């Protein structure tokens, strides 16, 4: 589904991704871990199409398409979704109108008619329940004054509404209490099918108790330096990253 090949990207002339490879197949869950500043959010941003980042080498194939050729909105239309590490507050735009516009624009992109209001409301209720997001938040401005946990649940709610092929979750678990964590993880698990896939960026093994990954990768200095199974996450939790970094430095 997603095939990243030798990806190099820079921002403000500073190279952040330094030749990154990753392949994600339908039905898989991948976890990406790694120290602060290693490039995890950069990878997520480049995949979602943030224009500040310049791709200087490599390619990304998304279901047979050259992902890097598409605008952010086209990528979303094709079924890529990024849950932001820091969701943006947008004063004056109501959450419900925002998600309605998004749903209908994605439908339009895929040649589908707009959802009837009734159908939309039904979908909305269902997905709000899935992430236990209060209906009151629907009429508030997007993320404005939302608590940290509400913002993260709002991301998963949007993901549920748009039902993407590939969901990239950038530290959606950070700052969540155990209950919220369970709600978010449960949301993801409900959405999981054999046809879609998730890439979960996290610092904490505890999320992986709920969302069980097929692969765990360690991203360091703009590259994936180690890949393992879910046991690797446990090991990282215990021993930290230094041993991997040392291992990596020896090989180069």
């Amino acid at each position, binding site marked *: 589904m997603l095939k990243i090949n030798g990806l190099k990207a820079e921002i403000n002339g500073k190279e952040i991704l330094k030749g990154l490879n990753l392949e994600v197949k339908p039905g898989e869950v991948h976890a990406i871990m790694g120290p602060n500043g290693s490039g995890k959010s950069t990878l997520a941003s480049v995949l979602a*199409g943030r224009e500040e980042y310049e791709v200087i080498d490599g390619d990304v194939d998304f279901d047979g398409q050259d992902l890097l050729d598409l605008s952010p909105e086209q990528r979303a239309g094709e079924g890529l979704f990024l849950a932001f590490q820091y969701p943006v507050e947008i*004063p004056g735009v109501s959450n419900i109108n925002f998600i309605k516009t998004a749903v209908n624009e994605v439908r339009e992109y895929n040649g589908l008619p707009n959802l009837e209001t009734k159908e939309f409301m039904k979908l909305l209720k269902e997905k709000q329940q899935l992430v236990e997001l209060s209906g009151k938040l629907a009429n508030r401005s997007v993320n404005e004054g939302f608590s940290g946990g509400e913002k993260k649940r709002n991301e998963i709610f*949007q993901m549920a509404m748009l039902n993407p092929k590939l969901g990239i979750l950038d530290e959606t678990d950070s700052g969540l209490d155990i209950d919220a964590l369970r709600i978010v993880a449960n949301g993801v698990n409900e959405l999981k099918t054999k046809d879609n896939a998730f890439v979960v960026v996290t610092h904490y093994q505890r999320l992986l108790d709920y969302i069980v990954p097929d692969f765990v990768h360690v991203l360091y200095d703009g590259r994936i330096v180690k890949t393992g199974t879910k046991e690797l996450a446990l090991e990282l939790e215990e021993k930290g990253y230094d041993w991997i970094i040392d291992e990596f430095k020896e090989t180069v």
Partner: protein
Amino acid sequence: MSTLTISDKERFLINQEGQDFSHEAKTFIKIRELALKNLKDLDFPTKKLENWKYTNLRGISKIEFRPQSAINIIAEKVKAHKIPNLDAYTLVFVNGFFSPEFSDTAEEKDGKFVVTNLNTAKRKFIKFVEPYLGFQTRAKDQFFVNLNSAFSQDGAFVYVKAQQKLDKPVHIINLVDGDLVAAYPRNLIVAEKLSEAQVVVSYETIDTASALSNVINEVFVAEGAHVQMDKIQNENKNTTHISADYAVQHKDSTFTINTIPANGKLIRNNLSILLDGTGCTANLNGAICLNGDIHVDNQTYVNHAQPNCDSNELYKAVVNDQAASIFNGKIYVNKIAQQTNAFQSNANILMSNDAKANSKPQLEIYADDVKCSHGCTIGQFDDEALFYLRARGIKESTAKKVLLEAFIGEVLDKIKIEAVRDYASALIAKNFNSKN
């Protein structure tokens, strides 16, 4: 060689003469005479004056503008400037002259209020007009105010008696038709004790290659009265529009003025609000969205003369292309005006490298128990928010529109009449995009 030279101003003033006001009551002729006298010592403002620093009148003193009544006004062309779905008493003025055939007046309707043209009111309702007309416009130093006072042909007169409420809004449509027109419409709005009025004033163009609209709105808000005024400036790109809006408020009254400068060549608004009783509230809002090379200059002056009053100012501007938006907000708090709350906010988004915004708050505070705050921002489009929307599948053009609507929407929401809000929103939405 000896030549008899006359200045541009003198020639300009000569061009305004030739109107016959001799039929007016003495009291009104006096206003004109005083204004003419003031004009002798005044001249067109230049950029040297602090308040005109950012606005260059680009040589309008040399243009041969004259008062001209329009001939052959075509009904269809007038109707095109009505606000759809607005149920209102409509008064139409073309080049500053009243068009009764397109207007519906209400003279002493059920003895509750008068909605008519000022010239009729000067004759029929002199006792309602005389105490108010020109009361707030005596400023000796204001060239354009005196120009209007001297040469104004007509305008709207809205008078609401004590404890009465206008049963529907008044819509004053000011049109310009013809080249080199100087139009001087002048409206007088009086809301007596505990009364209520909603007034919509729009300025539009039928057709002109060059015009000057020099307008005045004079508003009196008596004790406990409520007046809301929406002002829409939608003239063509050949029109210079200079407006002076005055309100004096008495005890416990509320006055709201929403200004929407949408189109024109140059627009200058001078708002001057006197809070002359305790417990007043004044709301001054501006929804500004510009493109092309229009220049818009909003000046506000709120005078807190009495204790316990609130003033709230919210001006927001989106500026495209080479357009310019100026905001200068002055708040004056008299030393007896304790417990004053004065808030002022001016936010600007520049959409292009050539777009300009200037923002200047001026606070003069002589009381000590005062809550005053002001904030101004001049920034670019919020790229973070734009990316967030696009990452959810929303096209860039739609996403921009959504964000700009949200930004300006905060001000548009202050317009209480839905039809007017829709009309203003549509004008603004047209200016979201570049003209280039």
